[in-house]
């Protein structure tokens, strides 16, 4: 049995979107998410507010699709680069891309040492910390504790 790239975090994301609508069985995971996010009652413009935002969201959903277990570090690095100078993946607004990538990289962030968090992944940790406290994201699982003091820099 092949493993769906989003098999593990799709339920969580769907839970977040909080919409039990019918899912078109021919759609791939990214399309499903985009379609559902359109109707998410708790957030507006989850797929991006502007044309540019929407394009960026799609770019990161594609990245998520090609993500493999071995490539987590690479993905983290590109997120780190991306988050220099902006709050979220697609600029200064929270989007579905944040949700998807958060769930995808959660295990990896858990395994990072405090040193790595404070030296190589400063921006992504700031982002991660912020997302995990966003309502609806991680209601029922344990949050990661980040050090408040910058002891490694």
């Amino acid at each position, binding site marked *: 049995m*092949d493993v769906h790239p989003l098999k593990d975090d799709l339920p969580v994301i769907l839970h977040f979107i909080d919409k039990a609508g019918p899912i078109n069985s021919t759609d*791939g995971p990214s399309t499903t998410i*985009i379609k559902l996010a359109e109707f998410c009652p708790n957030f507006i413009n989850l797929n991006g507010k502007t044309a*540019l935002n*929407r*394009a960026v969201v799609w*770019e990161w959903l594609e990245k998520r699709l090609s993500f*493999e277990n071995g490539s987590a570090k690479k993905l983290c690095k590109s997120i780190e680069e991306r988050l220099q100078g902006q709050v979220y993946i697609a600029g200064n607004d929270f989007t579905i891309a944040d949700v998807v990538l958060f769930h995808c990289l959660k295990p990896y962030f858990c395994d990072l040492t405090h040193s790595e968090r404070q030296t190589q992944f400063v921006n992504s940790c700031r982002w991660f910390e912020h997302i995990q406290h966003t309502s609806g994201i991680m209601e029922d699982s344990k949050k990661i504790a980040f050090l408040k003091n910058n002891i490694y820099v």
Partner: protein
Amino acid sequence: MFNLEGIESPEKLKVLFACYDTNTDVTLSSGGNSLITLTMPSGDVLKSSNSAVLYLYETACNKLLDTGNMHWLEWEFSQLRPLVANAYPSWNAKLSECLLYLETNLKADGIIRDVDVVSCTILITLSPLLDDKYILDEISEKFPFVCKWYLDFASKESFKKAWKDVTLDQGRVAFKNYFTDHSVQLKATVKPANHNSSAKTTTCNTNNSQSSETSKPLVTNEELRSSFHSWNSISALPKPKKKSHPILPVKGERNVMITSALPYVNNVPHLGNIIGCVLSADIFARYCRLRQWNCLYLCGTDEYGTATETKAVQEGLSPQEICDKYNKIHSEVYQWFGIDFDYFGRTTTTQQTMISQDIFWHLYRNNYLLQRTVEQLYCCQCQKFLADRFVEGTCPSCNYPDARGDQCDKCGKLINAVELKQPKCKVCSNTPVHRESEHLFLDLPKLEPKLRKCLEDSYKGSGWSTNAKTITETWLRDGLKPRCITRDLKWGTPVPLEGFTDKVFYVWFDAPIGYLSITANYTEHWEKWWKNPKHVDLYNFMAKDNVPFHSVVFPSCLLGTDDTYTIVNHLNATEYLNYEDAKFSKSRGVGVFGDQAAHTDIEPDIWRFYLLYMRPEGQDTQFTWNDFMFKNNSELLNNLGNFINRSLKFVSKTYQGIIPLVEITDTDLQLMALVNREVKGYISDMVKVKLRDNLKRILNISRLGNQYLQENQPWKLIKGSESDKVRAATVTGVAANLSCLLSVLIQPYMPHTSSKIQQQLNAPDSVNILADDAAFVCTLPGGHRINEPSPLFRKVEASEIESYRQRFGGEASKKRDDADKEDEAKIEADIANQGNVVRKMKAEKAEKADIDKEVTKLLELKKKLALSRGEDPNKKSKGGKKKK
């Protein structure tokens, strides 16, 4: 200003195309560390091609992509793209499985065809494969919808431009690095999805070897072996037969009769008419002769009908004189273009009357004719029943305002003139009245079962073009109705039946019979061709508007006789050729007409080449002067001409005009195998009458030849060691022989150029032969002496092209407004009336002075017409419209 960076890749092509398509200003740079990077004026960047395309279209159209269509972006990214990367440079079974999903969807509703983002992303991902015509050919049967979609898309100007800018004219080979260097990354994205189980089996490490191959197509050992075998098979070539008239079918041999739609006599044919029938048929006929088949190519002018009568009145001549005059013009035009008819006849002959009446009597006795009273349009002003072509009005089915009385140019439906809304007499613009007249009808509904059975057989012929079949099927589907075969006219074949003797046959009944009568004028044994369906293959060439008469009406007539006539086996129809975005128009002086081509400095072969290159197969095409210049300079001069001239000059300078001895190596066999592939394709495409593709094959062969010379560089080898010198000799000998092969393949297309090449090569006539298993053969062995080579083509300069564009652009007439056109119609009507007056007076032998007075009036009117058309009235001799 946007900036697009990245290596040559389909992804870069997508984004560039989207920029062009949305009129976004963009600069290009190569390299960069990502696959593609689109930097916006704001400094924001996008690094995914699909996102960039999404963004460009959304901002340009100010409209969000429907989320339902996002599915296709995901499908392209996660399924299609990796599979293409795996398969490149060839096609594979997995792709076929994957494409089935797309094909099914297109067939079901095809909505995605119209979504720019989806078309762009899917089709450009496929383009590195579909740009190869072998692949396209191979899959076109299985995936007709996908292929059609791709071809439509690929013909867009913005695509062509983007393709050119990204591939830098190298073609799909330009993507080689993308597919090899990024193969791991690309293939890694293959992920199973719930909707396409077939893709699940694709993993990241399959077939790595294939995409890392060099850009040259692979040649199998089998191909190398057979190429070597054919190279040495000169003795196996059959000897060409001498042509002697009359050509008659021979039992046990292949007998091919080719007809081109009979051009209507009262007009000078334009380039579109020429490529539509006579030229296309000529290419095929010349090919058949190369194949040593018994081939009879017939054509002639169609001379009966009202149009001729009216023209005669206009020019103050009798209908017969008009026919004589224009038949001569037609013959001259075709002769100039090098159309090699076995016989060019006409329909105003006694044989025509005999055969038409004979067929008529058979139909009459077999009860396939009906008698009916018809309401017809009668013009009180002109005092005659108006022929369908002489009524204009609004089409009853599509409301096109300029529909003719017999057929609507817009929807192609055949119309009964009385059904036209707001009918107008074309000559005097008055509204005609309805009047009754007795007529004979061909009972098509009764003949339909016979026709259907016959077509079932006929469709097996490989030469049917798709449009011909579609048009025929549409006709049958809409239901056949009885069709009138008689007309209230004078100028035609008389109806022999008592009570109808004052009428003539309607041209559509008797014009196709012209094929038979023209043959009868050619040989008394015409029935050996026409009553011999088992041993004769009949090919009809025409433009698409003529299809129903050749596939439905005429076969029905022949079937109704219960005699065994030869009925069409292959019906090949072209679409229309337009002239620089407009239609050809004699009255507005737009476009090049047959007699004018001879007054340019361009040789007939070059015209033939370009017309064939643009042959409207599958869709309408355009004649443009810029493209004409470009194709001449790039394809003829720099490709074909360059190769042959280079090869021959080397023989003449280095080897004193004597072809050296060759020692074939694998490198040479590689070339031969690739050439033989094209030759094989040439032969098989001719079966399907794909004339345009085959011209491109010839150009491909000379491209291979140029590459071969460039890679082997005999001019350097000749200065090297002993073994280098042997190589130089071999390469020279192979290139000279390849020139000879090209001269044979190009013969149907450019007969004059072909004989020029063969003259320079001093090639014997026996090379002009093609067999089923035609291949690259050594026809000019070592020791053969060639003649002095000289350049085959000349460069066409932009200034020359500009002068032609002006001359044939009808600029003067374009400025005229519609009011002028109405004036013109009025003057034309006046001329017709005045012509009548003069002829009547002449017939009544009136006083010469009186006649002269009326004639002066007539000439004044003609001068006025010429002026209103922006022509020089003094240029024209009396009654002569030869050169306008």
